[in-house]
């Protein structure tokens, strides 16, 4: 019994780190462009599919770690330019646009990849004894990669030119423009970055979950929970919330239905929305 | 002495480190037109926001005809008879000019009938037509309010204030952005209204202020710097220093005050 709890809790923790990556992508899109991106779960799903295709094409799993975010970035940038920009990011219309996008992505994957879910073999097989439980090596590895990616992303935001621009535009758009920052370009690149983060999360998660055209549907609400509970615009908060929520859900799953776990997270999210919409974690507010 | 129309006690409101309204104790008597003037940031609009319930005070109380309205919600205060115009003109852009007036008239009732066709309310229709004549926008009645010129929007706002039959009317820079012709029209209208309604007006245009105000209160940094009749204010050294400051304005004020 204790082993199951430990196992599920650790799975939750690791999954939380991966989701944190994806949720960061959503937070960046939501925080900067003010768009409720319904297709974000599908961005993750596309990442898993890209990983699958690059593995089948080259026989090398690791290539996926590069291919997925790269192609994801490009697709994201194109989408922003073609779809989001013409509607000037108008709120309600962008929700409909991202909903349409979600359908399109799912169908394109269904056409190219097929409708049957498939499993990907982990590149590293085997287990390692941890806290008295034999734990899957790849999961540990995935957690490490996710942590590194998270760290890398925060470094990116702090020190690269695009990262600084993104933070500036989010903080005060008009001043940023007045100072010569090309806001439109930042939006395009931001959407690309958001897609890339989610796709990378997908590539990392592919061996742990199934590759399936419906794979984004479950991830989406979770990302929103992390973003809302963590606090809109609060990136570290989003990461903390993602990890915490996944960990809690893992814990609850050890003695109750996974559905119950999901319902409790949703109830928590409602409470946050109603009582403290700026999120539970203090920090860099919008 | 009768109860003042509007009275505040120790009214204070801060925004972070800035004290926008500082222990304000204003008392405005009925039957007169009051102007509130002062440099930018003096707290004038904040004062209006506090009175109309858009902001709640950090401390202090607000009394409307003797009744404590501190902390009431905006729509409740509106129903009590206090109406205002906004500094940045704000009407219902997608509704027609006539509909703007119509809905303002309807909002006086607690209950909006869900099934009776709006067109049947003849009393409201009549009022709308009369008000359109009064503010001179009868030709533009069917146009969406968002397509109107700035001056016309300002007149529409005044019309909306009118049709609601307010007991106290707060005008926030009503002539801001108006051409001279529009300004005279607006001033005439306000003078007209002042015969039956208590009015408090925030203004920067000294011509307008000295033209219609019976009493002037000068605010600076959230507190009363001076108050009294237009002539008294025009002569007041402190006011000139804090607000007017420049010789050209001094002469102008003298002229306007003794006009």
């Amino acid at each position: 019994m204790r082993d199951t709890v430990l196992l599920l809790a650790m799975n939750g923790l690791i999954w939380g780190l991966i989701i944190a990556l994806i949720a960061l992508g959503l937070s960046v899109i939501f925080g900067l462009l003010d768009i409720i991106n319904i297709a974000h779960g599908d961005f993750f799903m596309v990442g898993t599919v890209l990983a699958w295709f690059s593995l089948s094409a080259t026989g090398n799993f690791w290539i996926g770690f590069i291919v997925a975010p790269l192609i994801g970035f490009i697709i994201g940038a194109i989408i922003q330019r073609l779809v989001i920009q013409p509607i000037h990011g108008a709120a309600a219309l962008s929700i409909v646009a991202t909903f349409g996008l979600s359908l399109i992505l799912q169908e394109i994957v269904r056409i190219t990849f097929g409708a049957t879910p498939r499993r990907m073999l982990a590149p590293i097989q085997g287990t390692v004894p941890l806290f008295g439980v034999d734990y899957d090596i790849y999961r540990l590895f995935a957690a490490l990669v996710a942590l590194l990616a998270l760290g890398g992303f925060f470094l990116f935001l702090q020190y690269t030119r695009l990262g600084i621009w993104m933070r500036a535009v989010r903080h005060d758009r008009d001043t940023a423009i007045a100072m010569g920052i090309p806001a439109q370009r930042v939006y395009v690149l931001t959407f690309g970055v958001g897609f890339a983060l989610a796709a990378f999360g997908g590539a990392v998660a592919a061996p742990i979950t199934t590759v399936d055209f419906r794979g984004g549907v479950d991830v989406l609400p979770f990302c929103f929970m992390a973003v809302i509970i963590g606090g809109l615009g609060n990136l570290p908060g989003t990461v903390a919330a993602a990890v915490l929520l996944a960990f809690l859900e893992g814990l609850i799953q050890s003695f109750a239905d996974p559905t119950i776990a999901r319902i409790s997270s949703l109830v928590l999210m409602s409470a946050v929305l109603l009582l403290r919409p700026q999120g539970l974690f203090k920090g860099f507010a919008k | 002495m009768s109860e003042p129309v509007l009275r505040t006690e120790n009214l204070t409101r801060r925004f972070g480190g800035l004290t926008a309204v500082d222990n304000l104790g204003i008392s405005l008597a009925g039957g007169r037109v009051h102007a509130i003037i002062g440099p930018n940031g003096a707290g004038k609009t904040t004062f209006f926001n506090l009175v109309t319930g858009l902001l709640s005070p950090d401390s202090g109380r607000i009394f409307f005809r003797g009744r404590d309205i501190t902390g009431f919600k905006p729509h409740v205060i509106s129903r009590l008879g206090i109406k205002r115009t906004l500094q940045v003109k704000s009407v219902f852009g997608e509704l027609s000019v006539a509909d703007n007036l119509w809905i303002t008239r309807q909002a006086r009732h607690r209950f909006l009938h869900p099934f009776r066709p709006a067109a049947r309310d003849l009393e409201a229709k009549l009022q709308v037509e009369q008000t359109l004549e009064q503010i001179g926008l009868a030709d533009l009645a069917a146009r969406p309010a968002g397509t109107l010129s700035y001056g016309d929007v300002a007149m529409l706002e005044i019309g909306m204030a009118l049709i609601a039959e307010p007991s106290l009317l707060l005008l926030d820079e009503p002539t801001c952005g108006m051409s001279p012709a529009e300004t005279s029209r607006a001033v005439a209208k306000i003078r007209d209204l002042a015969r039956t309604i208590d009015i408090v007006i925030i203004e920067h245009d000294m011509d307008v202020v000295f033209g219609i105000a019976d009493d002037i209160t000068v605010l600076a940094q959230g507190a009363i710097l001076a108050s009294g009749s237009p002539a008294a204010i025009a002569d007041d050294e402190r006011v000139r220093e804090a607000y007017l400051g420049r010789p050209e304005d001094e002469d102008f004020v003298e002229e306007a005050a003794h006009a």
Partner: protein
Amino acid sequence: MTRRSLEIGMAVGAATFLVAVPWLIPALTDNFWVSVITEILIWSLFASSVNLLFGYVGLLSFGQALYFGFGMYGVAIGIDHVGLSFWPAFGLGIASALAMALVSGVFAVRLSWHYFAIITVVFSLIFYFLAVSMKPLTGGDDGINFSLPPVFRLGGSVFSLTDPTFQYFFVLAVVSLCFFLMYRVINSPLGKGFLAIRDNDLRASLIGLNVYVLRLIAFVMAGFLAGVSGALFAFFGRYASASYMFYQVSGEAVVWTIVGGAGTMFGPLVGTTLFIVIREIVSSHWEHHSLIVGLLAILAVIFAPKGIVGLWNGWMTRLGERDAAAPAKPRLTLQAEP
């Protein structure tokens, strides 16, 4: 021909068509299209619930499927578990949808724009998962199948919804009644209040409108429309399933409404018709019709954000302005757009 008479002509034509469907369609094409049109009517009522909130009050709800689900389950559970007959089951469905709309609206309507949209989804997801997990009551994702009690007896004859013609007319009657109610509300003082709030809620509160209460009223009315459509759906399919409470269902209704024309009476009907017809025609040849739905949604928001009916109204207005000689006497534009 004036715009008014053109539109009245179209309305009469459409009404005649709708009444003639059970005889006209089988003569022209497959019988099966009668049930498609029935379905279209039901879903367009659902889309109207989205339209009432978004098009007239400015609140985008992505969770109307929740109230649809309550209407649907109210009927299914009422008939299957409680053994109710037709009208009480119908009543139960509508009442539970109304109650749920009131309870959730009290909380949801307090929130601003983005958070409102999000919480409507969250509420619907919570109940979706509850429905999935409470299998004994709701049949979970597989759903409940039930058989229909007779609607009423007249002398010796019994009318029941298993007769497709009667079913069609019943649905047509209920949906028309709901559209009529919506028409009255939109043109009433309450409806004008809604428009004012949608336009400028700050101004609205300053003129004395209680924004919170008015939004709540609209929310409950929308819940009513969604609940009725859910109940009709249960009767139509003799089936209820949790999958109809999922956010994708709500999302499709939003797309139908916006493509058809939000803020117009018949926009939802046009949008729903378009998408369901496309679905039926395309899916018999190609299984990826969702691709077309997605593409249309995106094209619509880029090129025709006011929707089909919105475009129509725009053309009509411009034609009218060109033809008009002198400006007419000031008219109060108190009629809502079709």
